[in-house]
């Protein structure tokens, strides 16, 4: 219990509850079951990207190529759906794409020792360019109604099956990172790489897997995007990397590595996507969208930093005081 209260993602969850509560008192139609679940369902793409990326963030690395990967994955999905390719085959192919991109990023970071932000900055440009090569700059349109419907099937008026799928994915990820040695090694490597080496954790393998996970997360995100949106522009997913990073950070995952859990990314994704929705309900023009996102991000990070700093300082002072006779 103490652990749960102390865990980092609780802060973000509280913010969501308070925020939704406030908006609900202003405009009660916000708090309908339908709307709340629409908000949650709407975050599914960011959630799955954040889950994948959280592996990389646990390591203290970063992956800014997820937006482009998502775009390319969505593009390929769309093209194949239009061609009438079997859905399972599509899923496997696009997953393979994510894995390949992850391997490339991972190789660059792990074996060529290129800083991850630079490596993924480079691949981001290349992948984004590839989308134009593949499509010639055209939208991918005319996806089957059947395929689009897949992302919309809901349990009653509540949650979509794909969101449950993503939650299961998050749960598996969570259990892996919490209870298996290999899962734990992501945060351990991010916490102290040398220390991880010392106790025999496979540092290189961990990094490779993290980037692959990130690639897989964004390629699944691409499939979901294609199904949810139904048409894919070559700019699909652009800027998603920054929003996903912001979601993870708001959810308590530190970019310095070693801290947080996948739930943070999932919760942060809901928060990030709810902003433009909330503005509609409170009647503020959507020009304030990014102002609010920015403020929220800064306020949350600053508050957490102050709280952490205070408590670290308190511990230090207690320790020092206890020494004096």
């Amino acid at each position, binding site marked *: 219990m103490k652990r749960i209260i102390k865990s980092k993602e609780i802060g973000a969850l509280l913010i969501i509850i308070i925020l939704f509560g406030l908006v609900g008192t202003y405009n009660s139609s916000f708090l309908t079951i339908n709307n709340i679940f629409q908000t949650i369902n*709407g975050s599914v793409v960011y959630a799955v990207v954040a889950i994948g990326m959280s592996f990389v963030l646990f390591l203290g690395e970063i992956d800014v190529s997820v937006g482009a990967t998502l775009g390319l994955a969505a593009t390929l999905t769309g093209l194949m759906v239009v061609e009438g390719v079997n859905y399972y085959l599509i899923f496997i192919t696009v997953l393979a794409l994510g894995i390949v991109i992850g391997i490339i990023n991972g190789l660059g970071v792990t074996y060529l020792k290129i800083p991850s932000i630079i490596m993924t900055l480079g691949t981001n440009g290349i992948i984004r360019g590839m989308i134009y090569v593949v499509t010639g700059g055209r939208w991918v349109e005319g996806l089957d109604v059947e395929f689009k419907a897949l992302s919309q099937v809901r349990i009653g008026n509540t949650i979509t099956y794909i969101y449950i799928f993503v939650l299961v994915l998050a749960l598996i990820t969570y259990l892996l990172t919490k209870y298996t040695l290999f899962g734990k090694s992501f945060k351990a490597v991010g916490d102290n790489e040398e220390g991880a080496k010392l106790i025999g954790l496979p540092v290189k393998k961990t990094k490779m897997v993290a980037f692959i996970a990130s690639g897989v997360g964004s390629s699944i995100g691409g499939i979901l995007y294609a199904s*949810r949106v139904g048409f894919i522009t070559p700019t699909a997913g652009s800027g998603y990397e920054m929003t996903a990073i912001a979601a993870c950070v708001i959810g308590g995952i530190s970019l310095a590595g070693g801290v947080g859990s996948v739930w943070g990314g999932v919760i942060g994704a809901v928060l990030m996507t709810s902003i433009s929705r909330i503005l509609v309900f409170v009647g*503020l023009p959507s020009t304030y969208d990014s102002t609010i996102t920015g403020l929220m991000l800064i306020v949350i990070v600053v508050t957490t930093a102050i709280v952490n700093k205070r408590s670290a300082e308190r511990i230090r002072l207690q320790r020092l005081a206890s020494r004096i006779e």
Partner: protein
Amino acid sequence: SPIGLNMVSAQSNNLIVFVPKVSGNAFFESANDGAQKIAEESGFEVRYDGNPEASVANQVTIINNAIQQGADAISVSAVDATGLDDVLRSAMEQGITVTTWDSDVSSDARQVMVAQGTPEQLGQMLVEMGVESLIDRGKDPENDEITYAWHYSQATVADQNSWQQFGEEFIKENYPNWVNVAPENYYSNQNAEQAIQVGEAILAAHSDIDLIICNDSTALPGQLQAMQNSGLGKDDVTVTGFASPNSIRDYLEQDVLYRWGLWDVQVQGALAVWISDYLAQGNEFNVGDTVEVPGIGEVELLNNSVLDPNAEDVEDKGVIVLPERVIFDADNVDEYDF
């Protein structure tokens, strides 16, 4: 003269750089299709060059590159109403033909603008499509209190905002009983997922809304998807707007909307480059003149003030307005493929 003959004599080998606001947008890609097709038939070259990010600076770069490349004509859909003026003027000074299409610059910074219509026409068209659909749905737009909102890309985009303004004026004049529930409008920044989010939120926050007008090709499908996600159809809430037929066809089939519109953007693209080539060949083309465009028909150069009442009217600069705009519905949508 017979069209065939005209085409042979027009073989110019000119290089025309055809610049969209942004690359990777179905609308502009279709315009390019039209441009390429007519270029091939008429024997000049069209190079399509756009930046994935819509920004003035990027367009200036592209235009500068076109100038340096030795283009004979530049035809651009401007991201910004004035930001390209100087670079385009300097292109004209260097003897390059400059035209605009879809979205104009200052009237003295180009020779000809190929417009899809006047803002007035387009704003009115958006509202009228809504009115027709409301009637189909059994409402009485003349007398019922119709609640409505606009949902499109951004406050900073010139054309969509000007349509909204004229549309709004048109509503005030003709349907004083209508109520705009969001005078500040809703924007989704050409982000498809955000368009769905905002769309859903509009429907949830205004459960009694009657009409949503989406003058942006990302907002319209997003809003329609939001309708579906919220379990609504064309007889619950009226949605209409501008988008290409291919991107909306499915929603029509699933009864999410009655009709939407656009102009034939392939014709617009074709016309823009053809006129550019025609001017680059040194042909005189003054206000009031007409010319026969192969496959399109006769077009006339109108005064600048047709588009913008404040613009100056000069002899050798003017506007061509596309002869027609199209409203797509179940009856005609299969005739179009773009």
